[in-house]
């Protein structure tokens, strides 16, 4: 769309480097077809400064509503304040913007619940007592990685404490196994040890060294907490190629096309499917309500450290081999032809 046109809704997404946000972009574009409102999507490429520039650009272009998924929820306060000051309604998308009163609404899958869903799956599929548990996390420099991990830890910790799981690859986590609520610093230590930096290659290197270092009793049937699909596939490849691993349960997130295939092939156990379409629909619905001077519907509130933000939460869906056809294909998210052996 031409620069001169007045925009109604501006959308800022964190980065084009991760597959997840390509999907969001796609879905937003689809959601817009046939509405009378114009929108524009900008990417921040992992930089809070660029995010701020993007917001400013959109303000310049006269948006009324800003839908923003911050790269870093704590660092986006300045950017949304500028929008708020212009009387723009700010909708935080999937990631809450903290420490500011300049955010109006929040549509979310709730990142804590993503981690929790991953952990719950591992707990539900635990085999016997003392099953080895391998922990992996996103980037140590990414706050979201901490939120996912926190959600997972809350569910896993009791099961570690009671001996269902024993931690195989993190001395720091082992040291903290009796603590439910980890401080940011404690989490930082664990994540520093098991970070994948969100990169499959790094995940692969880490997994290889961990398996090398693992004693025989840390093999056999194992559980693996993998933060997202890209790293999950890389880790799964490593575990699959170790003959001492008889079986592994591994988590994922985002329902990448590739992981769909892995799940069908039995190489990945599950993925947390965040149906972006629902989130997009909610976000756009809110935006349209606001543009039409109606009050958007919300289902609850979130505390962002400063205010209670009105929120609409969408549940995440755990996708496994059993329900993949229903959740990913029948729902029209992917085409059946995207997969083989379905």
């Amino acid at each position, binding site marked *: *769309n*031409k*620069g*001169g046109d007045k925009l109604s809704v501006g959308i800022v997404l964190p980065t*084009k480097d991760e597959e997840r946000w390509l999907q969001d972009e796609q879905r937003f574009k689809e959601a817009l077809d046939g509405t009378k409102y114009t929108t*524009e999507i*900008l*990417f921040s*490429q*992992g*930089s*809070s*400064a*660029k995010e*701020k*520039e*993007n917001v*400013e*650009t959109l*303000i*310049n*272009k006269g948006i009324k509503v800003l839908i923003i998924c911050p790269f*870093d*929820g*704590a*660092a986006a*306060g*300045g*950017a949304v*304040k*500028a929008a708020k000051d212009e009387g723009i309604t700010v909708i935080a998308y999937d990631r809450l913007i*903290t*420490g500011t009163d300049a955010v109006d609404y929040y549509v979310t899958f709730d990142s804590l619940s993503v981690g929790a869903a991953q952990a719950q799956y591992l707990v539900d599929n635990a085999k016997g007592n003392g099953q080895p548990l391998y922990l992996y996390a996103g980037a*140590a*420099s*990414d*706050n979201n990685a*901490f939120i996912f991990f926190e959600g997972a830890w809350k569910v896993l910790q009791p099961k570690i404490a009671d001996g269902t799981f024993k931690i195989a690859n993190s001395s720091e986590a082992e040291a903290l196994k009796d603590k439910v609520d980890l*401080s*940011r*610093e404690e989490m*930082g*230590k664990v994540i*520093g040890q098991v970070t994948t930096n969100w990169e499959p290659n790094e995940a692969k290197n880490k997994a290889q060294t961990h398996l090398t270092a693992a004693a025989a009793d840390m093999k056999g049937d194992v559980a693996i907490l993998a933060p997202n699909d890209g790293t999950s596939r890389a880790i799964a490849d490593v575990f699959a190629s170790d003959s001492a691993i008889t079986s592994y349960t591994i988590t994922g997130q985002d329902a990448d096309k590739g992981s769909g295939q892995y799940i069908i092939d039995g190489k990945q156990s599950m993925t947390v499917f965040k149906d972006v379409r629902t989130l997009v629909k909610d976000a756009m619905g809110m935006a349209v309500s606001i543009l039409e001077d109606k009050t958007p519907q919300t289902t609850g509130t979130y505390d962002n450290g400063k205010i209670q933000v009105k929120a609409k939460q969408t549940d995440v869906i755990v996708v496994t081999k059993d329900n993949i056809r229903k959740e990913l294909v029948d729902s029209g998210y992917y085409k059946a032809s995207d997969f083989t052996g379905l």
Partner: protein
Amino acid sequence: MNFFNETKSLVKVNIREYGMYIALFVIMLTFSIMTDGLFMSSRNISNLLDATGYIAVLAVGMTLVIVIRHIDLSVGFAAGFMGAIAAILLTQAGLPFYFTIPIILVLGIVIGMFNGVLVASFGIPAFVASLAGMLIFRGGLLMVTEKSGTIIVDDENFNAIGTGFIPSIAKINGLNLLSLILGGVMILLYIYSEISNRRSKLKYQFDVVSMRIFTVKVIFVSAIIAYITWILAGYKGFSWTVIIMLIIVVVYHFLTRKTVLGRHIYAVGSNPEAAHLSGINVKKITYIVFGSMGMLAALSGIMYTARLHSATTTAGTLFELDAIAAAYVGGVSAAGGVGKVTGSIIGAIVMASLTNGMNLLGVGISYQYMIRGAVLAAAVIFDVMTRKKRS
């Protein structure tokens, strides 16, 4: 010589320098047309300049580093690291901003000097020394933010550095009075310095440009200052970021062009051995230049933290490449001894304008990278070509 010929010969001699300004002008004009004037709107220009600030100060420091034939890859994460330290001092240690800022600047100087020692005294190539520094500061940044993650800073005064504007006092037709006054003062100072410069040249009976060209030039530059002032005054006036940029540029321009230290820096850049034998302390100059780079990295870190009201765990990523690109677009030569700080600032603005304009036009991020790469290459090709022609 008539007016036209004089202008022509002036342009010919200075084509390399004017080239950048012309490029900036063309870019701005193009975007203005394509965005129906949105690009040149008060608010957009104000945003654009603010977004350039933290890279521009780095580019100034980098210019001098490249002039003395070195490079500093560590400045990005060094800025991020020091921005985080500043945030920690402000929040966890509870220091007021007027203590914090000098402390961080001094820390920057120390860090920079350390690089200088590695380069000048140990003789390690700057590229490698600063590559090591980059890794170390990256680790340092992760370490200091490990406890808290992103550190939110809510010191109003501190944050004003990145997001505040000078007070407006009063509004005239929607324009900020104090900013207008400031612009006026700048114009007066400019005109005064031009006239006194010409006077003193005449006193020495040197050649000067004809009165007509002189008048045109003074009016032209004054008009540009006035225009920018008018644009900025139409939004929220001069931001503190712009003020800092202006001060840095003026100070460094003066330093490099008018002082003995500046001469020494360029002498070292154009022939280190000859500089040494001319009684110039090459090591000292290297320390100073790296020290200044460190200080500006600290300033950049402060500006970035203030701009985001928080110190993030990835702050500083790739700043160094943006700064280096700005310096090269601004006409610095890798062979040493050539390059102006004003050029680098313009280079930084050119690169920021590209991003901004393309965002306004809704150009996809993948094309943005490619276009920025192409512009960088084109700028340097132009530079190399015109340089070749002249010599």
